[in-house]
């Protein structure tokens, strides 16, 4: 089957790899680049566990055919911490007991990163709307919303 050469900048590094036709960005990140933070919860855009930033916008990476975003800038959870130093969102999730099984966490954090980059001082309702496409089956969401608001406070 003909594969295409795809170039992306992922977490600041230029990457070139082969992708099968109609391969999703999620598959490329995981199978080609070994970046496993984004998770496959449904591969249908209904769970949000694979959310990453493409040119600063949060999208579900399972829904993006990777060859259609040639040369894009992609940011995943692996690119959020500065070495071992967590950023504010990560630290707020950690301190706020906002993770349980952890499977939704990468998507939640990337969605929050995009929200706070665009809107550094979101209201409770704005946080809720931002993560409304991210499913969490464990926590009941309160701690997650609180952690994102906490992260906004820490950045001030």
């Amino acid at each position, binding site marked *: 089957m003909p594969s295409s050469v795809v170039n992306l900048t992922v977490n600041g590094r230029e990457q070139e790899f082969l992708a099968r036709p109609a391969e999703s960005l999620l598959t490329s990140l*995981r199978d080609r680049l070994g970046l*496993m933070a984004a998770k496959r919860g449904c591969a249908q855009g209904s769970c949000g*566990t694979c959310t990453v930033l493409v040119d600063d916008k949060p999208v579900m990476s399972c829904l993006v055919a990777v060859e259609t975003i040639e040369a894009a800038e992609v940011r995943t959870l*692996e690119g*959020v911490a500065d070495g071992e130093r967590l950023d504010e969102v990560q630290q707020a999730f950690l301190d706020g*007991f906002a*993770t349980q099984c952890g*499977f939704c966490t990468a998507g939640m954090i990337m969605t929050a990163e995009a929200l706070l980059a665009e809107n550094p001082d979101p209201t409770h309702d704005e946080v809720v709307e931002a993560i409304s496409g991210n499913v969490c089956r464990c926590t009941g969401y309160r701690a997650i919303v609180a952690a994102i608001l906490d992260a906004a406070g820490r950045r001030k």
Partner: protein
Amino acid sequence: MTGYKVIGSAVQRSDALGHVTGRTEFFEDLNPPGLLHLKMARSERHHARLAGIDTSEAEKTKGVVRILTADDIPNNLFTPLKLIGVEPDDEPILAEGTVRYRGEPICAVIAETEAAAYEGAAKVVVDYEDLPAVFDVEEALREGAPIVNEHQRTNFFTYEGHHCRRIRFGDVEQAFAQADHVFEWRYQSAPIEHAPTETTGCIVVPQADGRLRIHSDTQACFFTLDNTALILGTPFNKLRIVGGTVGGGFGGKVDVVVEPVSCVAAMLTGRPVKFVYNRREEMQVSSPRAAERIIIKDAVMSGGRITGRQVTLYVDSGAYARHSPYGTTKAAAHLPGPYAIPNVWADCHCVFTNRTPSSAMRGFGVTIADFALESQMDRIARALDMDPLQLRLINAYRDGDLTAHRKPAEGTALIEVIQKAAEMVGHDLPAEFQEMSSWQS
């Protein structure tokens, strides 16, 4: 205070750092070279005889490596609780002769890519001869209902010669005869999916020494290992399970449904094999929390004392037993709820229907029973024009009470949580109710 140094303190979760950095490894984060993908061809019928299975077109699909049928599974028929002595084996790994629910696995298609596996599975042609199906627990128990699972012989699971799990404590008939009021109501629930964000799956990697390493999101490593070894007919030490990271379990990942067939695939191809449910399979094919139907009949005195409780429970096990016989026993043990009721009678039926097999889910046997029992308490309180908390306090079990399954209660605290909840919402309780205690009669 307790004098403890670590116990009782909110130390940070040891797994949280991995979660917030994306470094926690889930089973699917493994990507061994040469990985094959397994997808199922599944029954499109609720109940049918399999007149023929034609895999020839599927085999020709580009990328398809091999197709497994029932003949490839060493011990195809099993039941997961056989490990604790539950009989009979009633469920095939891959369908043999008959399918008993829509979505039942028939053929496993192993391919180089996920897309090829899907395409191969879609090309399996199955010739069905429909059989009558039954979807309702009470209809299934009626005389003349089609038999769902001939390995079970009847449409109910048999408990030591009985058609249901029974509780017999005191004399409910006498209680009804002497009661000021008798109330009888009915409750029902829908099947509920665990809906974990990570679907059920595994990756099996053949090892240099001939063993199989199974990376799985099972909730129970040895339970999965032991059941898998029995199905494969291999020594137990041929298998190794590596797990312990689960993207949501809630009871749904104890069924041992993906590992055995993946092991067979890995053994026959000599290559790593991944079988992971897609979202549709997780939602519609993986076992749900059983639908239940509960009828409660209570004998109640005018002051609110409940003197007798009769419960008829139907647990919809779907087409196979899995963990439902145990869940039904667990429900029986939970009756009549946290109340000291001197006369209790319960018939708890584990019923087979042509629906997706149900199994364990967070609190199964108890969750739906609590819905029924606590709705019942509210209705009694309203019928007697009583405060709903006072009704509960009057009947609450305390230390030393004998439960319906004849175990003396200890460590009870129902009264205390009710008092605390009343305080939280400003619900006034008269002094005598505020002074009650679970550990003084």
